[in-house]
């Protein structure tokens, strides 16, 4: 259904629609043409920022923040997720607390992180870490807990010790779920980085977008949004490819 060809065709169609709509508006003026930037205008802003090196600077700032925050959270989620799933009393203690914290939107804690860590890099990285940790932790634990008991039985009757069970059955069996958890985390990181950079940041794509608002430059806003979308698509594609390589053989051909 959603082949690469169909999707590209859809995107091209969307681009054309956008160009057409904004061109008509520029002529007729339903809305102040500044508010509806044409693709050409967006392109121009992009080139300007690329040439000055600004775009690269903001892009990599955001990327580094995501990488650091997500990286820390992923390690913690893997370690603690495994630990909690292997120790029943610990899990029973931790579960209710997670249930309590989970419904609170992570962005509600953003000001808290600014208070705790100030306006610098640390607060952004810590916030991304916090936001991505809980969902990944929950997903990792869930995929470990889901390991079919019949696989454990099979291994045990082949002579597996407890260590064998963990290393040779539980971990490989949970791996697909763990990878899904990581994908979830990175998706979430991309989702909130913008928000985190709206406030108290002097660099980053989110900051770039906010600047577009402050200096009344909607073309910059659109550019920032599109770059983010592109980054997200890129990361997603890479992850899906990696996932297919790691797990490809397992799925029915």
């Amino acid at each position, binding site marked *: 259904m959603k082949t690469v060809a169909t999707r590209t065709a859809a995107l091209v169609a969307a681009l054309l629609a956008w160009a057409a709509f904004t061109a008509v508006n520029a002529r007729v003026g339903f809305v102040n043409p500044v508010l509806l930037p044409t693709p050409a205008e967006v392109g121009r802003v992009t080139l300007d920022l690329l040439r000055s090196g600004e775009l690269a600077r903001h892009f990599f700032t955001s990327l580094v923040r995501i990488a650091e925050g997500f990286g820390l959270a992923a390690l913690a989620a893997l370690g603690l997720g495994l630990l909690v799933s292997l120790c029943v009393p610990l899990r029973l203690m931790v579960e209710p607390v997670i249930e309590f914290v989970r419904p609170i939107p992570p962005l509600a804690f953003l000001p808290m992180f600014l208070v705790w860590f100030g306006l610098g890099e640390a607060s952004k990285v810590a916030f991304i870490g916090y936001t991505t940790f809980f969902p990944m932790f929950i997903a990792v634990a869930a995929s470990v807990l889901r390991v*079919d008991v*019949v*696989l454990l*039985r*099979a*291994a*045990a*009757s*082949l*002579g*597996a*010790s407890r260590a*064998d069970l963990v290393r*040779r*059955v539980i971990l*490989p*069996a949970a*791996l697909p779920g763990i990878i899904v958890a990581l994908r979830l985390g990175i998706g979430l990181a991309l989702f909130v980085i913008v928000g985190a950079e709206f406030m108290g940041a002097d660099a980053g794509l989110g900051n770039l977008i906010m600047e577009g608002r402050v200096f009344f430059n909607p073309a910059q806003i659109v550019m920032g949004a599109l770059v983010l979308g592109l980054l997200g698509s890129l990361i997603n594609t890479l992850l899906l490819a990696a996932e297919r390589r790691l797990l490809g*053989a*397992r*799925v*029915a*051909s």
Partner: protein
Amino acid sequence: MMAGPKIQIQGVARSFDVSGRSMPALAEVDLDVAEREFVCLLGPSGCGKSTLLNIVAGFLAPSSGTVRVDGHAVNGPAPERGVVFQEYALFPWLTVTGNVEFGPTLRGRPAAERRQTVARYLDLVGLRAHAEKYPAQLSGGMKQRVAIARALANDPAIILMDEPFGALDAQTRETLQDELSRIQRVEHKTILFVTHSIREAVYLADRVVVMTSVPGRIKQIFPIKLPEVRDRFAPGFTQYESDITRVVKEEVAKVHE
């Protein structure tokens, strides 16, 4: 040679806690299985035959009674008791080879020896050509053959099989019964086999143990005096089938009351 029975099931019973109440699945069962014997546990659904097998395998502890193997009490799973499951339980992240050599790998056998073992047992089940495939690429019958090879490769004295052919179509099922019969003539393991197919039981077993409906107890034991290679249409065979069917039907009627 062998002094006592290989498996001794003495007074084994098991109840399960279902929302606060204790539901008996297995009432007192006493059974001895001799070495190299092929015993089938037969009975209506839910009669506890799988529970009994799980207890012998060491996956569940009995509520009362003991199971002894070679005189030693069973208190957990062990490689001496290999298991073949109805759901195959193959490790999806390993190839056929990886699965079959799982037991020897755990025991740290050297690679050359493992290769030989895998080759021998894949030949035995006729899957040598599929050695590098993953379980997802195999049919149900092939998966079960890999599962059997995997259990055998660990050289257990006992094999426990829980309705291993239940998920397969009739044709594949009969083929695998033939294969199992042939393998047993070569390997001579002690086998405890759970099924609800009377035909299957008469085809494979030295003795057929018919169990009552829940809570399961031994209703009657039928020694099967037929040649090693059996003909499903011989009069002797069908006689056993009808005798056992009559006994089983009494129990099935009770389940539907």
